[in-house]
C-alpha cells in the first residue's frame, strides 16, 4: 500500500453519492466544492463503462457548490437552503446529504442540519464524506450505516423466514455491479430465498430498505468492505450474518456458495440441489461447447494471468481462472485499502482454494507501482492475460499481453447488464478471456504465440 497514488483506482468518500444513486429513487445532496459531485460521477459512472446519469445522477445532483463565503462564514445555512430546494424540486424517496472537504474542514455540522429536516418528517439522512477521510469504499459503508441509523432507525424486527439482505460489491466502484447483483439475486431466489438486493434494478427501493430489520439473516459477499454493516445490523436488530468472503464465479464456486447459504438459512437441500443441478447442466453445456475452440486455438490462448481489482472482486475471479480454466496466477493486485484483519480473511479463503493464489497476492493501491511490477515480471508476456482497467489495457498493448476488463477506470467500453458473478458471470468471463485473443491481432487455429 502506498501513501501517494498514481493511476487511481477508486474515488474519495464522497464518491458514495453513487451508492445513493444505486438505490432506486434515492438522491444525493452534496455539500462540497463545485467540482466534487461532477468528478465523482465522471470517474465512477462515466468511467465505469458509461453507466450514465440514470434517474438523478450526473448534472442533476444537488450540490451547494461551496465557495469562499461558505469557507469563511460556514456553510450550514447554504446546506439548509439546498436541502429545502431539493425537497421541493426533486422527486425522490430518500435524500442523503454527503459533505466534502471544504465543509468538513471548516466544521459544518452537516449531520445536524440533515437531522433538522428528518425531525420534521422528511426522508433526509446526513453523512460526512470528506475526501480526506477515506476512499469510496469507506464512503459506501458510511452511507449505508447512516441510512440504517438515521432512516430505518431503532425498530422492533418482525423476522421473516427466508428473507435475506445482501451486501456485496460496491455499486459503480464495481463497474459490473448491475449485472452482478441481478445474478446474485437470481441464484439466491433459485434456492428459495426472498432477496433484498438493495441496489439496482432488482431492488424495490426504499420499501426494501425499510424491511432490512426483518430479514432472517444478512449475507455479506466480501472479505472487507461491508463487515461493519452486517455487524451493525447484528447489534441493532439481532440479525445473524453469513460472510462468504469470495465472490462466487463459475459453477464450482457458485454451487458451493449456494450450498453454504442454504445450510445457514436452513433451506430445503432438495430444492437447492435441484437448482444447482439445472444450473450446472446449462453452465457445462456452454463450457464444453467452447472446448473445441480451446483445443484448436491452444497456441493463442493465455496460460497465466494478472488480475487488478478490489478485494471483493479480484480474488473470486482469480480463483475461477485457476480452478476451472487451469490458468496460473502471476499476480493478483488488490487495489482497495485493506485492514490487516481483512488481508487475513482474503489469505485464508484463497489458501482454501489453491495455495498458488495466495503466493500471487499483492496489496497495492498505487497503479504506477502495479504497472512497474507487471513490466518487471512479465517474462513471457505474450502468453499472459491482464484483467484490469483501461490502464492495464494500455500496458497489455505495450508489452504484447492479452487483456480483459475487470475494474475501474474503464473509459473505453460500454457496460450494460454484463456480469462476472455466478454461473452467468463465469460464462461471460470465459467469453471475454477467449475473445481477447482476437483483439491483439489476427489469430487463427494455426498461429502460435
Amino acid at each position, binding site marked *: 500500500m502506498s501513501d501517494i497514488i498514481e493511476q487511481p483506482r477508486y474515488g*474519495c468518500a464522497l464518491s458514495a453519492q453513487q451508492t445513493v444513486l444505486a438505490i432506486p429513487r434515492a438522491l444525493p445532496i452534496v455539500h462540497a466544492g463545485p467540482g466534487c459531485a461532477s468528478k465523482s460521477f*465522471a470517474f465512477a459512472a462515466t468511467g465505469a463503462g458509461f453507466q450514465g446519469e440514470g434517474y438523478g445522477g450526473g448534472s442533476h445532483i444537488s450540490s451547494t457548490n461551496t465557495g469562499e463565503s461558505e469557507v469563511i462564514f460556514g456553510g450550514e445555512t447554504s446546506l439548509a437552503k439546498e436541502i429545502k430546494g431539493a425537497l421541493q424540486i426533486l422527486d425522490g424517496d430518500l435524500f442523503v446529504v454527503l459533505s466534502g472537504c471544504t465543509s468538513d474542514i471548516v466544521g459544518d455540522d452537516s449531520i445536524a442540519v440533515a437531522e433538522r429536516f428528518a425531525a420534521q418528517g422528511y426522508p433526509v439522512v446526513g453523512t460526512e464524506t470528506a475526501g480526506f477521510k477515506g476512499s469510496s469504499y469507506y464512503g459506501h459503508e458510511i452511507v449505508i450505516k447512516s441510512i440504517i441509523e438515521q432512516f430505518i432507525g431503532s425498530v422492533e424486527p418482525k423476522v421473516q423466514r427466508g428473507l435475506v439482505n445482501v451486501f456485496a460489491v460496491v455499486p459503480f466502484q464495481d463497474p459490473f455491479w448491475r449485472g452482478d447483483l441481478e445474478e446474485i439475486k437470481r441464484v439466491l431466489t433459485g434456492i428459495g430465498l426472498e432477496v433484498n438486493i438493495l441496489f439496482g434494478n432488482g431492488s424495490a427501493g426504499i420499501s426494501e430498505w425499510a424491511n432490512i430489520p426483518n430479514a432472517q439473516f444478512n449475507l455479506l459477499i466480501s472479505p472487507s468492505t461491508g463487515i461493519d454493516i452486517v455487524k451493525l445490523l447484528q447489534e441493532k436488530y439481532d440479525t445473524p450474518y453469513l460472510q462468504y468472503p469470495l465472490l462466487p464465479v463459475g459453477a464450482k464456486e457458485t454451487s458451493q456458495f449456494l450450498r453454504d447459504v442454504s445450510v445457514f438459512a436452513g433451506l430445503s437441500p432438495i430444492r437447492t440441489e435441484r437448482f444447482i443441478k439445472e444450473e450446472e447442466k446449462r453452465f457445462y453445456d456452454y463450457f464444453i461447447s467452447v472446448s473445441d475452440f480451446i483445443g484448436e486455438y491452444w497456441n493463442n490462448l493465455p496460460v497465466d494471468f494478472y488480475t487488478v481489482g478490489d478485494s471483493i472482486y479480484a480474488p473470486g475471479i482469480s480463483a475461477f481462472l485457476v480452478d476451472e480454466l487451469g490458468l496460473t496466477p502471476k499476480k493478483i493486485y488488490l487495489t482497495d485499502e485493506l485492514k490487516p484483519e481483512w488481508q487475513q480473511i482474503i489469505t485464508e479463503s484463497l489458501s482454501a482454494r489453491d495455495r498458488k493464489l495466495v503466493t500471487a497476492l499483492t496489496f497495492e493501491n498505487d497503479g504506477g507501482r502495479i504497472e512497474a511490477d507487471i513490466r518487471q515480471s512479465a517474462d513471457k508476456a505474450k502468453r499472459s492475460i491482464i484483467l484490469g482497467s483501461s490502464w492495464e489495457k494500455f500496458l497489455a498493448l505495450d508489452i504484447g499481453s492479452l487483456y480483459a476488463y475487470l475494474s475501474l477506470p474503464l473509459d473505453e467500453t460500454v457496460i450494460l447488464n454484463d456480469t462476472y458473478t455466478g454461473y452467468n458471470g463465469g460464462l461471460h468471463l470465459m467469453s471475454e478471456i477467449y475473445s481477447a485473443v482476437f483483439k491483439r491481432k489476427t489469430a487463427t487455429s494455426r498461429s502460435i504465440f
Partner: protein
Amino acid sequence: MAVYKDMPEVEIRERRLNAILSYQGDAETLNIQSKKRKVKCPGSSYNQCSQCAEGCAETITYHVIGAAVVSHAPIGCSIGVSPRHILSRAVSKNRGLPEHKVQMISSNINEEDTVYGASKKLFAAIYEADRRFKPKTIFLQASCASGIIGEDMESIARQAEEKLHYPVVPVYCEGFKSNIWSTGFDAAFHAVLRRLVKPAQKKQHDLVNIFNFAGSDTFIPFLHKLGLRVNYLVPMATLEQIASLTEAACTAHICETLATYVAAALEEQYGVPEVKVPPPFGINWTDGWLREIAKYTDRLDLAEQVIAQEHERIQPELEKLRTQLAGKTVYVLSGDAFAHNLANIAKDLNLKVIGLSTLHHDLHFETPQQVNTLDALIKSNGNIKNVTVCNKQPYRILKLLQDIKPDVLIVRHPNLAPFGMKLGIPTLSEGDGNYSIGYDGVLKFGRRLIELLAAKNLFNNIALHAKLPYSKWWQQNSIVNFNNTQDGGL
C-alpha cells in the same frame, strides 16, 4: 492596469472579468447590460453540481509534453486522469506526435494531513514524480483541502526546485475560490506565463500560436493554405514549444474563455499580437479571422485569394445542405464563449438559432480591444430571444427546452447531451473544439446534423422511456416562482 501581474495567483474571474452565472433574457439586452456592467442576475439558493477550477487547470497541465503533475489533494480530486490519458493518446495519434502519457501523482491528502499539515507528503510526491517520470517541469496543483489548511506551496516549490534544478510550478486552482470553473484555465496559464514562457530569441514570422483544448489537427492544413505554420498550445505542446511561443507572429485561439487571459498577457509582456476578431467558426468569422492573421503575417493578397477560392469550393455542397436544413430550429448549450461559435455556424446552414445558453458569461475581457463574440454573434445572426447564462442546472434548462422545443440541441460540455436526449430532441455533441473550424467546418457540421436528424427513432425511443427526477411542483410551476418561495416554509 496591467493584465499580467507578477504574483503567485491571478485574480478570479468574478472579480477580474465580472463573470456571472445567471441571466435570462435576450441577447441584445445581455450585451448592452454587460457593457454597462449591470446585468440582472437572479440568484438561487438551490443548485445542482457545477465543476471546479482544478478540473479546468488539468485540461492544460496534464497535457504538457515533458511535464509531470503532482496533485496536492485527496484522491477524489485527481480521479479524472484516465480519460485525460486516453485523450492524450488519441490526439498524439491524430497530430502525428509521439504518444503522450499523462504523468500524475496524487499526494493523497488524508485526515491526519489536514490537522498536521501535508508538506512532507507533497515533497515525497514531488520527488517520486521526479524518479518515476523524469520530467523537465512539475506542476503542483492545489486543491480545496490544501488551500484551506494553508499549505505554503510557494516555498515548497522553491525548495524542490533547488534540489531538482528544473521548474516546479504551483497552480492555484482551489475549487472553492471561484464558482466559475474557467478560472482554472487562468490559473494554469498564469503558472505557465510566470515560469515557463521565455522572451523570443528570434521572431518566426510564419508561425501562429493557436490556443486550443487538445483538439484534432484542423489548423495545420487550414493555415497551410496561407503558407503559415501552427503552434498548438498549451495542451499537447512540449515545454520547448511553450518557452518559445513568444517567437510567433501572432496569437489566436478557439474560445475567448479559454485564452483571452494568456493572449492579452503575451501581447502586453512580449509584444506578440493577439488576433482580435472572432475565431474561425462560420463563414463570415472565418473570412475575418483569415484577414486578421494575414495582417500580422503580411499576406493580405494571398488571404483574399484563399477566401475567394474557398467560398467557391464549398458553395455547391453548402447550398445543398442549406436546402436540406432550411428552417430547422436549434438551441445551443455550451461554455461561454464557445456557444457563440457554434451558433455562428448554425446560421450559415439556414438553421434558426432559437435559444442559446452559456455556462457562465464574462461581462468583459482583459482589454477593451479584445473581441466580444456575443456582440459579433448579434451582428451576424440578429438578436436571439432566449438567452440564458447558467452553470448547467438541468432543473432550469430542461424547462426551457421543454417550452422552446428546438428541432436540434447542440452541446459542448460533458453531461449536457442527456438534457436533449431525455426530451427526445436530437442532440449533437461537439466534443472536439477544433473540428468545426473554417469553411470545411461548416460543411461537416451540416453533414453531421443531417445524419443526426435521420436517427430520430432513437431519440423518440429514449424520451418515451426516460423519467426525469423532478417533482410535480417543478412540472407545474415556472422556475421563476421557485426563487420566490425560498424564504417561506421550513
